[in-house]
C-alpha cells in the first residue's frame, strides 16, 4: 500500500558535503599547504603557503565509544576549535587549533575529562616514530562470525605498548591491526604486525538449519577447497575434514555451517606487510605464529608474542626501517631467532598455488616515466 510521504522525506541524498565541516583556517588554505612539523608527540604543526599555521592534536580512542563521550569531545571542540573536529583513518580523534598557546589546556582537558591519550604521531624528518592506534573489528562485542574478540585484545596490547603511543621513540612506522576472522573487515593483510582470528575445526553441520535456511548448491560452491558435498537424499551437506581449511566462507553463506570451537579457535599472528610505497613497495603480511589460544580477559599469550615481534624490530631496526625492510635485511631465519619464535610446518604455504600471473603484476605506484 503506497502511502503519501511527508514533505521532508528523501532517500539517496548522500553524506553531508565535507566542506560544510571544515574550519575557516582549512577552508582558506585548502590545497595550499606548504609543509608540516611534528612539534611534540601528538601535535602536528601545519604551515600553509599563506604563512597561516594550524595545529592538529591527536588522541587515541577505543573505537567503540559512547554518545556521551562524543558529546564531551564536542564540548571541548566548541571551547578550543570553533566547533570542528575530525577522526583519522585509524580511530584517532583530532582537534584543529590555530592558537598554539591553547594546546596544553586542550590536551589536559581531553586527558582528564575523556581519558584519551595524546600521541600516535611520527616525525619522519627527525626519524622519531610513535606507534599509532590498532585498526580492528567488532569481535565478540557485535559480530556473528568471530574466532576471537577484537576490542579486548587490542586493549591488552595497547596497554602493553602504551609508552610507544605517547612518545616517539621507535625507529620506523609500525602499523598494527586485528581482524576477528578471515573475512577481515579490518583487512589486516598488509600491516607490519597483524592478528587474525582463525578456526581450526571444520563446520559442525546443523542439518536442520541447513534444510531451513540454506541453498545447497550455493553452500557447496562457497568452499574454495571443494570440501563440501551435497547429500541430496538427506537435503543437507557433508564436509570433508581433510580438505577444509576452516576459512568460514560457508558459514557466511549458510547459518547451518557453524565452525566455532572455543578450545580450538584462536589467533594467527602475521607480520611484514605494508601499504605505503615509501622505499619498499606494498607487501602482504606473512604468518609467523600459526595459532594462539583464546585467553580472555587479558590475552597474555597474544600480547607476549606481539611484544616479542615488536621489540625484535624496535631494538634492531635501522632508522626508518619498517618490519619487512628489517626482515629482508637480516633474513627470516635471523628474525625468527631474534623474536624467539618457533618455525613449524604450518608456516609453509600449502593453500593452492597463487596464480602465476598475479606474481608478475606490479602493485603499488613505483613507476619511472
Amino acid at each position: 500500500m503506497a502511502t503519501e510521504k511527508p514533505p521532508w522525506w528523501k532517500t539517496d541524498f548522500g553524506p553531508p558535503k565535507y566542506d560544510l565541516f571544515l574550519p575557516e583556517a582549512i577552508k582558506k588554505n585548502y590545497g595550499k599547504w606548504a609543509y608540516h612539523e611534528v612539534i611534540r608527540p601528538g601535535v602536528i604543526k601545519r604551515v600553509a603557503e599563506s604563512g597561516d599555521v594550524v595545529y592538529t592534536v591527536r588522541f587515541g580512542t577505543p573505537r567503540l565509544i559512547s554518545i556521551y563521550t562524543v558529546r564531551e569531545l564536542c564540548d571541548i571542540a566548541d571551547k578550543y576549535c570553533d566547533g570542528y573536529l575530525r577522526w583519522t583513518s585509524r580511530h584517532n580523534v583530532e582537534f584543529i587549533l590555530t592558537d598554539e598557546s591553547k594546546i596544553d589546556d586542550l590536551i589536559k582537558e581531553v586527558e582528564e575529562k575523556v581519558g584519551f591519550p595524546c600521541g600516535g604521531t611520527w616525525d619522519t624528518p627527525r626519524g622519531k616514530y610513535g606507534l599509532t592506534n590498532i585498526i580492528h573489528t567488532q569481535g565478540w562485542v557485535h559480530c556473528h562470525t568471530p574466532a576471537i574478540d577484537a576490542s579486548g585484545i587490542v586493549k591488552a596490547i595497547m596497554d602493553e605498548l602504551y609508552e610507544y603511543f605517547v612518545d616517539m621513540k621507535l625507529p620506523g612506522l609500525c602499523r598494527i591491526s586485528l581482524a576477528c576472522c578471515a573475512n577481515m573487515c579490518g583487512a589486516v593483510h598488509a600491516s607490519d604486525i597483524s592478528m587474525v582470528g582463525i578456526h581450526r575445526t571444520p563446520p559442525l553441520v546443523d542439518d536442520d538449519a541447513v534444510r531451513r535456511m540454506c541453498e545447497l548448491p550455493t553452500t557447496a560452491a562457497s568452499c574454495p577447497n571443494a570440501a563440501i558435498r551435497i547429500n541430496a537424499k538427506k537435503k543437507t551437506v557433508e564436509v570433508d575434514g581433510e580438505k577444509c581449511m576452516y576459512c568460514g566462507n560457508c558459514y557466511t553463506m549458510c547459518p547451518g555451517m557453524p565452525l566455532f570451537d572455543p578450545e580450538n579457535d584462536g589467533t594467527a599472528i602475521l607480520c611484514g606487510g605494508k601499504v605505503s610505497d615509501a622505499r619498499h613497495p606494498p607487501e602482504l603480511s606473512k604468518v609467523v605464529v600459526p595459532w594462539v589460544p583464546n585467553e580472555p580477559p587479558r590475552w597474555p599469550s597474544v600480547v607476549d608474542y606481539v611484544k616479542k615481534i615488536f621489540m625484535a624490530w624496535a631494538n634492531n631496526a635501522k632508522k626508518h626501517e619498517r618490519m619487512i625492510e628489517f626482515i629482508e635485511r637480516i633474513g627470516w631465519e635471523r628474525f625468527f631467532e631474534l623474536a624467539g619464535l618457533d618455525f613449524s610446518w604450518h608456516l609453509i604455504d600449502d593453500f593452492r598455488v597463487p596464480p602465476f600471473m598475479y606474481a608478475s603484476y606490479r602493485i603499488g605506484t613505483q613507476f619511472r616515466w
Partner: protein
Amino acid sequence: MSETPLLDQIPDGPWPSFVKEIRKTAELQEKAIKEGKEIKMPGCAKALLKQLERSYEDKKTHWKHGGIVSVVGYGGGVIGRYSDLGDELPEVHHFHTIRVNMPAGWFYSTKALRQLMDVWEKWGSGLLNMHGSTGDIILLGTRSEYLQPCFEDMMKMDPPFDIGGSGSDLRTPSACMGPALCEFACFDTLDLCYDLTMEYQNELHRPMWPYKFKFKISGCPNDCVAAKARSDFAIIGTWKGDIQIDQEAVKEYAEWMDIEEEVVKLCPTGAISYDAEKKEIKIDNSNCVRCMHCINKMPKALKPGKERGATICIGAKAPCVEGAIIGWVAVPFIPADELKDRVKEIVEPLWDWWDDEGKFRERIGEFIWRKGMGMFLRVIGQEPDVRMIKHPRTNPFMYFEENELRPSKVVEELKKRGVKFKSLEREEEE
C-alpha cells in the same frame, strides 16, 4: 559480587577502555531517563556487558547469524544482529547495526555530531564506532521497529545524514584528508570521494552485484587509507615530471639532518645525490619511482612534481576466498583534472561486465583473474602498459585474436570447422 568479573579486568592499564565506554553509556542513559528523556533502548548497554561477559566465559560469540532488516527504499546499510541469549537478555535480543555514511575525510562540525548523537540516544544503544573499517559511522544496536524512525530523524537533521553501504553493493567510498590538511595530496581526494558517492547513490543503497565493491582514495603513495590493500578500486595520487626542490630549505634540513645517510642511501633507485659542500641535492628524475621517502623526510624542501594525477589499482581484498590480494596497476596515470570523468568511464563498463558474467560472491579481482587482463583492459578501454607488470610473463602460452593471425589455409580450415578463436570482445547478447 560483580556481575562481570572478567570484564572488570579490562579497564586496567592506561589505554582507553571500551568496557568503560559501555558502562558510561549505561549510567548516563539511566540518568537521562530519570530526567525524562525519551530513550527507546533502556538497559541495553548493561545487557550488552552481560552478554560480553558470557562470551568471555565461553570463549565464543553470542551473536546469531544475520537476518534481513532494512529501511524503506534501501537494500543495504542496515545489518541484522540477534542475540542467542535473547530470552535472558531481551534488551539486546535485536541489536542491529546502522552504517551511516561519514563525510569525506571524517571532518565534522560539533553541531552535526550532536544532532546525530541525539538521534542515537533516542533510538539506539548510545554506542557507536568512530569509525568502522570501511569508514562509516557505525551505530551499534537497535531494534527492527526503530530502524525506520531512526533513519527518518537522520533525514530531518541539518545537514541530514544518509545511510552507507553493505552487502553486495558499492560500499561507502572513503578518502584521506587530502588537500584539507596535507601538502602531499596530488589531487582533491575529498572532492572526488564526494563526487563518486553522490554519482553512485543507487549502487550504494541497493545491492545488485555479484559481491561488494570498494572505492578508496589516497592523495599520495603513502596511502593513509590503505586503499591499495583494501579496495577493489584504489585511486592513489602520484605525479609525473620533476620533484620540486627548494634548495634553501634543503640547507635548513642540512643543519641537523644526515642527508647522505637518511635520504640518499635510502632512495630505492639511487636517484638522489647530495653535494655536502653546497648543501644541495640533485635528483635524477628519470630514475625516480616516486616512492615518497625523500619527500616524507624533507617536506619543506621537496614537493611532488607539478604534473599531478592518480594511479588506479584494481582488485585488492581480504583473504576470503582466493587469498589476500594487494591491488595491481590497472591504469598507471590519469591527470588530476580528468579523474572524475575517467574513473566513471572506467568503472561503469567494468561493473556492467562483472554484473553480467561474475559469479556469485566473486570479487572484481578474482573475476579479472578468471577472465584475463587482456579482456579487462579491452573492457575499460585502457592500452596495455609495461608499468602494469613487474616483469613480462615467463611462459609462452599466449592467446592471439583472429585479427592478429596471418591469413592461411589452416585458419580457413579451422574456421570452416567452426573452431572459435580467442576474442577479447565481450560476446553480444543474443
